[in-house]
């Protein structure tokens, strides 16, 4: 019997910066990677960054106040200011 292995794309945390964005990927089934992503998320939140869970074609996205390890993509931006 042939077993088909399907690789799941890693979840990704994108932080907007001078390079465009810095990216951190994690496998939601890997506790260490989840912890690392969570820690980075919390670090950026402490600096005032805003976080959004996004999905393809802008479906099912939301403002994130806490890290969601199952989010396929999280984008964090610096805090917003009036211009």
């Amino acid at each position, binding site marked *: 019997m042939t077993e088909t292995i399907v690789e799941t794309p890693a979840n990704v945390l994108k932080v907007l*910066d*001078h390079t*465009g*964005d810095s990216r951190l990927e994690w496998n939601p089934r890997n506790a260490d990677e989840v912890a690392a992503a969570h820690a980075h998320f919390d670090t950026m939140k402490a600096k005032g960054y805003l976080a*959004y869970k996004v999905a393809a*074609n802008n479906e099912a*996205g939301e403002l994130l106040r806490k890290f969601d390890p199952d989010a396929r993509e999280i984008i964090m*931006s610096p805090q917003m*200011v009036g*211009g």
Partner: protein
Amino acid sequence: MPTVDWAGWQSSTTYWTTNTTSLMWTPEYTTTGYTITGGNSYGSISITPNWSRSQPNEYIYQAPAQTVDEWRTLVRQSEDARRERQRERERQRLFNEIVEHDQAALQVRERARDRATETLLGLLNPDERAAYEQDGHLVVAGSAGGRYRIDPGYQQNVYELDEHGNRRAGGRLCAHPVMHDDVGALPREDAMVAQLLMLRYNEPGFLAIANRS
């Protein structure tokens, strides 16, 4: 008449008179740059009829005053030219450094913009992407029911739209992310990403922050 760069000679007793110059040098001294040629155990000096050796390591050159003045001028000109060449080399070196740095910085900026554009386009559905690529701006549905147009840029680039898709009077909004991190400036496409996300998922928050004109 030999060309002499007196500035290179180490002399403890060099003196100028109207027609006499005395030079002393040590075995370690080199004669690079001198065109006086000849030879002795310590350096190179042309033993011409005008040179007389008063004692070991000391030569006396009997020269007319005009010759001495000419030689001083030659030395000064030679030194000035040497310093100017040095300055020119330094200017060229700095210029080359600046050009290389600017080119590298430009490449970094372009890569950043490409990356930010990729993120921005990934947030659009096919219709929105087509409209952006055609019109150069984004149209966003706000989380509270409003509609907005985001123009390229990062400040004063968001407009409230009415039900017909036209800009509302007094509906120009300015809110953007802090555009510098610890290293450098964010590309403007990142600002558009941040504006789009906030309008789409926290429209009241955006309106509370934005300045209106």
